[in-house]
């Protein structure tokens, strides 16, 4: 079997394995698996309201997936998407609350603020990696918690007077769309889907059509060869993290300006950043793959909320399935071995 075929088969097999294990778990624990999956489907696509909510969930997933994938193309593992997202969320809301401007300026400004905040938060690990050869995984993990505590502090002291949530953003900074909401039976679907699709195209364009993109990928494949070919490895590492942070910050803007319209103190992470790792991994870091993976995970996440209501199955089942998919994709060596064995039997 060709490599290309295998690369397409592996994510599909991983998803199937994840669903199979999830089904077994439901059967073992005595839940009705069929009812569970029907509830999941209805919760994601059952009517226009759920469809709208699913699309709303897909928006930040696409952007978080792009963020992880972009850094990955340069050989960097950005676990800090979560932190960059939180910082972006805060920045967007801050601009959304603090200014009174016409929409044509205010909204882009708020989105830009989120992108810059995410970029800055990702610049730190990029710079430390380039300059001091510090592993970006550890720095980004540490920065996730730093972001969580600092944004909580700012929300309590600067964006409100000791309360747990900021004021709602001005209408002029909002991504919310009465049109899309009315089309989808008043779900929280918003214009962010347009931004997400543009971001997908931009990522594809940078990586496939520009010299810079070629350099970024080259650094990811072999730093020494790139260096020898006259590329500035340090600069490319920092740039890759910064662009990754822009995508992550935008994902935060989607939550701050679209879904919620405010920023609130968080006791834990949103999870979107970590799910972004799953999205990028399953999508094999390609723009189209990321969109497909984001659609899958977004539908699973939103559909899951219907499972306890309609079938009495805890919605955490979907978290288990997502974790298993990540696990199986990561262990693709196992799946490759399996494919090879099956192929050999076929030859005999």
């Amino acid at each position, binding site marked *: 079997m060709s490599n290309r075929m295998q690369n397409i088969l592996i994510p599909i097999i991983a998803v199937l394995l994840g669903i199979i294990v999830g089904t077994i*778990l439901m059967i073992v624990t005595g839940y009705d698996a069929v009812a569970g999956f029907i509830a999941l489907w209805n919760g994601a696509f059952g009517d226009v309201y759920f469809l709208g909510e699913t699309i709303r969930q897909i928006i930040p997933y696409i952007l978080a997936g792009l963020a992880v994938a972009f850094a990955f193309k340069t050989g960097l593992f950005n676990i800090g998407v979560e932190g960059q997202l939180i910082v972006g969320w805060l920045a967007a809301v801050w601009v959304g609350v603090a200014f009174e401007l016409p929409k044509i300026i205010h909204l882009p400004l708020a989105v830009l603020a989120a992108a810059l905040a995410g970029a800055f938060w990702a610049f730190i690990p990029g710079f430390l990696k380039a300059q*001091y050869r510090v592993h970006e995984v*550890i720095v980004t*993990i540490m920065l996730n*918690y730093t972001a969580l505590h600092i944004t909580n502090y700012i929300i309590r002291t600067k964006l409100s007077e000791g309360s747990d949530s900021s004021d709602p953003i001005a209408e002029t900074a909002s991504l919310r769309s009465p049109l899309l909401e009315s089309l989808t039976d008043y779900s929280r679907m918003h214009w962010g889907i347009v931004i997400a699709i543009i971001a997908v195209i931009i990522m594809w364009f940078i990586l496939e059509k520009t010299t810079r993109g070629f350099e970024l990928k080259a650094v990811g494949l072999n730093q020494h060869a790139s260096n020898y070919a006259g590329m500035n490895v340090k600069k490319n590492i920092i740039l890759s993290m910064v662009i990754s942070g822009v995508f992550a910050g935008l994902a935060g803007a989607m939550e701050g300006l679209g879904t919620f319209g405010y920023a609130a103190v968080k006791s834990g992470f949103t999870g979107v950043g970590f799910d972004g790792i799953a999205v990028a991994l399953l999508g094999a870091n390609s723009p189209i793959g990321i969109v497909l993976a984001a659609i899958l995970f977004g539908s699973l996440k939103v559909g899951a909320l219907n499972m306890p209501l309609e079938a009495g199955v805890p919605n*955490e089942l979907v978290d*288990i399935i997502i974790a298993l998919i*990540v696990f199986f994709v990561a*262990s*693709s060596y196992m799946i490759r071995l399996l494919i090879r064995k099956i192929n050999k039997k076929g030859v005999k």
Partner: protein
Amino acid sequence: MGFMEILMIIVPTTLLWAAPLIFTALGGTFSERSGVINIGLEGLMVIGAFTAIVFNLSFADTLGAWTPWVSLLVAMLAGVIFSAIHAVASITFRADQTVSGVAINLLAVGVTLFLVKFIYGKGQTDIIQESFSKIDIPLLSDIPFIGPIFFSNTYYTSFVAIIFAVVAWYVIYKTKFGLRLRSVGEHPMAADTMGINVTKMRYYGVLLSGALGGIGGGVYAQAISSDFGHATISGQGFMALAAMIFGKWHPLGAMGAAIFFGFAQSLSIIGSSLPLLENIPNVYLLVAPYVLTIIALTGFIGRADAPKASGIPYVKGNR
């Protein structure tokens, strides 16, 4: 409030918060010393906390005062079993160790919350009745000055953690097993050439991290949170990871860092009731462990270097 009284509050709270971090950070040390990055410490703590609480709730009537200790052993076993997933993926199937660790974290939260709802029909367990409680350590607490500060109103688990750290130091630096463990983490091919089974040693490393991470979670759940829900373990595992790095992959260093982070955590909680500290926003104390770890990595306070082969799967015959 006198200086003595302040110490009598701060020291036991610091040790209380440090204990889970020490256990888990030691686990991380074993894993990384064998050459396997373990981002999944957080998930292992979640599993440990969940198992300890469920076992504690189920057997408190029969086991009485021994419940928390037996629960801790069960949590340890659960940690070992769960870490085996990470071991199989990252050692046998050569998965990206960071990705596998992320999967462990996601899986642990999903599985435990699913099971909590399955067993109790709600999102959070009841509060345990038999938890680790405050004690005065016999004899030692009678020592003047030191006794009241270090050995009164404290928890046995904190001292078990410190003893474990010393044992871990002995095992890693003074035994044949430790030498082998370190050698497969630094240069697996050389170790392989010398007849050391790299795969086996790495499995030991990861399973030990599971055992210690499970204990860490069990201690946290039974001494600090007393129940299990979605927010019980939120960042403890990553803080333990930070402690391991801040301690430069050395068991005693990790212990020292864990105590220091425990100090920062306890100040962020009780600081508002202490003079001098009441005016400092606790955000500084909350982020201190993470920021300090980043600074430690950049080398401004002595460079911290990971074991050389950490994160690289070993494939026989590859150079």
